[in-house]
């Protein structure tokens, strides 16, 4: 069994109109090498499901997004995601805007093959109104009125991990695994990109705890060193603020997105690394502290 594929083979599995999820959180451990491959492809009309960082803005800038399911879109140190803002303010995308907690609840429902899960989050806000969400009464004596958070079923999920093997086993060695395991469970297919790919992981009991979901959820493994850049990939490297600023500027430049695409994306990953000062510089970006 060998699930290793190229980024191009991974992205070739996308079809127009698919619902796809991205792991990570804001500008943290996003599968950006895969995102760049999507930017180079013809695929369109995607529904994105994400705790949004630059992948959301970039795919919006490229006109690939029909609908965004999100709780936020932010670059963190740069709070407002420029391209998300631009297309959102132009009314160019549909949105399903959710509380961060409702969002993971919807992924859980999908992973457990449930139509919905009850929660209080979203009640008494406009989240329920704009998304036409329904409430449900507890059948027990309390009779509480709760929000029924629908399952967020994904066609495909992309997750960036620190280490994977060719069987689909993976390790997330950063301190926070975020909700990547829920994305993997919510999706019909999950493709990993990994800083390092080995033939077969051989772990001690401590490092085995860094495995956060099972390989049967994984259908493809892509070797993508520095594949989270310009987002963080703890503990290896931090975000690239210089690059993120350059990306932010593209939103206020005439023809800015095409210039960004030419400067960084169209020449492939080797060209991308060269345009960002090379692998050594990218791999030694310091982790942010808060």
């Amino acid at each position, binding site marked *: 069994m060998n699930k290793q594929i190229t980024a191009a083979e991974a992205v070739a599995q996308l079809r127009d109109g698919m619902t796809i999820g991205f792991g990570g*959180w804001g500008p943290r451990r996003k599968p950006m090498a895969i995102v760049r491959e999507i930017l180079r492809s013809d695929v369109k009309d995607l529904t994105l499901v994400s705790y*949004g960082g630059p992948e959301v803005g970039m795919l919006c800038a490229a006109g690939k997004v029909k609908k965004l399911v*999100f*709780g*936020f*879109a*932010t670059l963190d140190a740069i*709070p*407002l995601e420029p391209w*998300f*803002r631009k297309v*959102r*303010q*132009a*009314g160019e995308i549909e949105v399903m*805007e*959710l*509380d*961060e*907690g*409702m969002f*993971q609840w919807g992924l859980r429902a999908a992973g457990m093959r449930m139509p919905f899960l009850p*929660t*209080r*989050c*979203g*009640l*008494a*806000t*406009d*989240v329920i109104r*704009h998304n036409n969400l329904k*409430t449900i*009464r507890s059948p027990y004596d309390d*009779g*509480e*009125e709760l929000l029924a958070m629908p399952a967020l079923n994904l066609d495909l999920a992309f997750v960036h991990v620190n280490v994977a093997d060719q069987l689909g086993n993976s390790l997330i060695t950063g*301190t*926070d*695994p*975020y*909700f990547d395991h829920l994305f993997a469970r919510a999706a019909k297919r999950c493709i990993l990109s990994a800083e390092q790919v080995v033939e077969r992981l051989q772990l001690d009991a401590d490092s085995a705890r860094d495995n956060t979901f099972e390989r049967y959820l994984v259908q493809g493994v892509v070797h993508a060193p520095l594949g989270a850049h310009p987002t963080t990939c703890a503990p290896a490297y931090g975000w690239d603020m210089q690059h993120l600023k350059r990306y932010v500027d593209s939103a206020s430049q005439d023809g800015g997105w095409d210039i960004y695409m030419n400067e960084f994306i169209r020449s492939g990953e080797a060209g991308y690394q060269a345009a960002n000062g090379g692998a050594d510089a990218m791999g030694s970006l310091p982790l942010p*502290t*808060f």
Partner: protein
Amino acid sequence: MTTNSDFTLAELMIVAASEAFRGDGEILASGLGIIPRLGASLAKMTHAPELLMTDSETLLVEEPIPVGPRGDYVPKYSGYMSFERVFECVWGGRRHAMIGPTQIDRFGQTNLSCIGDYDKPKVAMLGVRGLPGNSINHINSLFVPAHNTRVFVAGEVDMVSGVGYNPARWIEHMRQDLMEIRHIVTNLCVMDFEGPEHAIRVRSLHPGVTFEEVQASTGFELLQAPDMGETAQPTDEQLALIRKLDPHNLRARQLKDNPPGVRAATTGQ
């Protein structure tokens, strides 16, 4: 306890923010932004050592971490608090967060999503983030660095992201008893929701500010707390702790022009 008249408005607001956490007990205190975080940190280092705090990422600490570049400071971790665990904490109600929304209305409803028409907003902001879940599950306080009628809007906020005390938004059998909005700390005053039917009251005015000025900067009618006085000025002990918690003086950059804590009556800013 001696007070020191040489302090900034940011420092006064940090002390006021710290007061919001008084008496909370053993819960997670989350101050989002420099002044709220310094307020929560100051609370933990003075009147509320029982509070739990994180490194603003994934790990729990018993000693609040100074803001900004850490230099030689080594955080002393005491536990783990991944984002997934934060939701478990939130849904269990064991948290008090202080956040800075873009809009607030007379019900305490908050907006972090967008301004204007929802389908084609004039300004798209971050998104609702955790506001719906936080606001309905645990104590929240609000932080407003520039008190004006664009923040404190007439009518409802444009997109209700966080719940408030608006009866029209709640229907029978929903549990409204799990929410509480504690204080609003602004650059002019401290407010609470202890008026009739949770009406917003001015609890204290910052030195040199009048109630009329606060009212004129607010899009809805305010009440005065019967014991409305002046916001407590920082003590020397508090100022020393604030300097330790903010060694790079990031607090000086949080408010426009970093005004002094006691405003001269003549400036009329």
